[in-house]
């Protein structure tokens, strides 16, 4: 809804609008500052960074830091930039997001349309899983991954992300399907569709908004994860965040801030892209159920 202003005089209304726009623009600038600092720093030379003002525009913008971050910077003993780790992250994030989303959708489907005694307790327990601090599970997780032969592998990492994403994805889909008319499921049953057919043909195709929310949420979390990445997939299989950390927080040596910033922006690009492109659907998807909590 939108508040109208029929009761307010035109002059007052205009003043209010100016205030709204002014407030929004000021806040937008504040929100953008860190990104601006990263971007402008990545385009500056090291000398300019050391001597100059953080907020000043680059005097002679250069993308050399970007080139270096992508293909030349040293992460450990190999100096091939972060591009390889970028693909590592992609390889990890895509299966992890898709699998956890699909499982969440199925769980939500069962928990709303095929209820059985105790479904609430099960849902409650799955929801509580969202809140476990990840630092507390590292060691036992490592042990189990070792027993399964998945230690230090992308597969293991994917599994970890799927497990700890399940609570959230189940929550999202359950709330969404709660509002989905039961009659449609009944109709499909009478039409002769079984459990999976109803899911594939009726529910999933109408789950667009919540799929978008879930994918954005999962993608962001998994892409940005550092703790699991550093613990369960070291070395060449490292995800982007681990490589970025290796680059920016090396304990000794000259700090190439422009390269660090460029690498950081590379690391942020996919999630930024997802938010900018899908932001509209995000709000819509939240409307469609997730907000109900």
């Amino acid at each position: 809804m939108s508040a109208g202003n029929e009761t307010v005089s035109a002059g007052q209304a205009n003043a209010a609008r100016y205030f709204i726009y002014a407030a929004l623009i000021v806040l937008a600038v504040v929100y953008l500052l860190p990104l601006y600092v990263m971007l402008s720093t990545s385009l500056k030379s090291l000398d300019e960074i050391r001597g100059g003002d953080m907020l000043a525009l680059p005097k002679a913008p250069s993308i050399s830091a970007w080139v270096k971050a992508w293909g030349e910077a040293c992460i450990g003993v190999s100096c091939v930039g972060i591009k390889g780790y970028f693909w590592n992250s992609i390889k990890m994030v895509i299966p992890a997001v898709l699998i956890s989303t699909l499982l969440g959708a199925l769980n939500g489907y069962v928990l709303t349309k095929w209820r059985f005694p105790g479904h609430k307790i099960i849902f409650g327990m799955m929801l509580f899983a969202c809140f476990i601090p990840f630092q507390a599970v590292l060691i036992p997780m490592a042990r189990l991954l070792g027993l399964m032969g998945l230690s230090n592998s992308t597969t293991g990492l994917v599994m970890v992300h799927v497990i700890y994403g399940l609570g959230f994805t189940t929550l999202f889909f359950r709330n969404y399907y709660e509002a989905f008319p039961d009659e449609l499921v009944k109709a499909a049953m009478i039409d002769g569709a079984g459990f999976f057919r109803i899911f594939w043909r009726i529910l999933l195709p109408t789950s667009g908004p919540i799929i978008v929310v879930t994918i954005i949420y999962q993608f962001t979390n998994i892409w940005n994860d550092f703790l699991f990445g550093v613990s369960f997939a070291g070395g060449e299989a490292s995800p982007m965040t681990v490589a970025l950390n290796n680059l920016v927080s090396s304990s000794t040596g000259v700090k190439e801030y422009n390269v660090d910033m460029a690498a950081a922006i590379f690391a942020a690009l996919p999630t930024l892209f997802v938010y900018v492109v899908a932001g509209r659907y995000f709000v819509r998807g939240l409307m469609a159920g997730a907000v109900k909590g």
Partner: protein
Amino acid sequence: MNIRMITKLAAGAALIAMTAGAAKAAEQVEVLHWWTSGGEAAALNVLKENLQKQGVAWKDMPVAGGAGSAAMTALRARVTAGDPPTAVQLLGFDLKDWAEMGVAANLDDLAKKEGWDKVIPAALQNFSKYDGHWIAAPVNIHSTNWLWINKAALDKAGGKAPTNLDEFLALLEAFKGQGLTAIAHGGVPWQDGTMWEAVVLSVGGPEFYKKAVLDLDPAALSGDQMKKVFDTMSKIRTYFDPSFSGREWNLSTAMVIEGKAGMQEMGDWSKGEWLRANKKPGSDFVCIRFPGTQGSVLFNADQFMMFDVGGDAEKAQLKMASAVEDPAFQIAFNTVKGSVPARTDVSNEKFDDCGKKGMADLAEASSKGTLMGSLAHGYAQPAAIKEAMLDVITQHLNGQLTTEAALKRLPEAVKAAK
């Protein structure tokens, strides 16, 4: 995107993920370390190439951040999983702690063959051996009680390097008079600790350091000498610039290099920054032991602890251990890193003046028994006690604790962490 396509993608992606893991080469070493920056990584690359010449592949597992704290998390995960890396960069008491868990390899045969017992300082052997058996190959020896002074600023202040605390404080005042940040410092617990231990050594000498820091004598930890240490720290604190908190050490070094600050108390790794800025020891900067600590060395050595990997991997592991102790590598690595070789039988001709001084100091301290482990870097106390002491030191330096409270808190914290 239709649903079938998503399923196919998911299946495909899962498949890729499956195949992406595993696949170990015949002879390889997997090395967990936090030397990720240019200079260090280049130094390590020498080792990698040496091993490759012997047909041993190098699987790199760098984990930077927090002076190895992220690396320690990764290590725990790997060891818990029953899949430890071949070799791990470790410091001080962490070596003992890990060896205690029964996960260390035994390097005795190699050490005997190559005579490590004779060439590696005894104080260091304490950490490279567990229960009388070699478990680690030391790479280098850093020492932490150094002071790095900008030569131009020093000349302006009279040109004489300080040799005791009073001269040091006078020099601070002089630098302040020049409009400089008198001493560049980064407010991070380990840096605070590095300065603190140098002050302890300076105030009380090696005996006091041993008593207070190594033996944790409660009387020493709260006595008059310790009061002087904390008072001195408070005094030095007044010469910091306002934005010291959380600053990386190399940024502080840069301040000294650029002449914005007068000096820096830091380990010998900071020399690398000077060299990379094309500055010469003696003409552009002065390296001295922290005033009042000449003759003693607080050391911090990087070691590759070898984990019990068993079977074929062991052969590659021994090759690596041997390559680490190769004098040529020791020279190549340490000239870049700023440290001195872990072996005492290495020629010093490739080293610069500061390096030569470091090697001489080390030999002297080693023979006099004043080569002692650095607290801030885990060579004096196990992690729990070290961190507990750093808590007190850093809180005091940041004004959260008064000197009196710090003196009371220090022995308590030590006791609680034991």
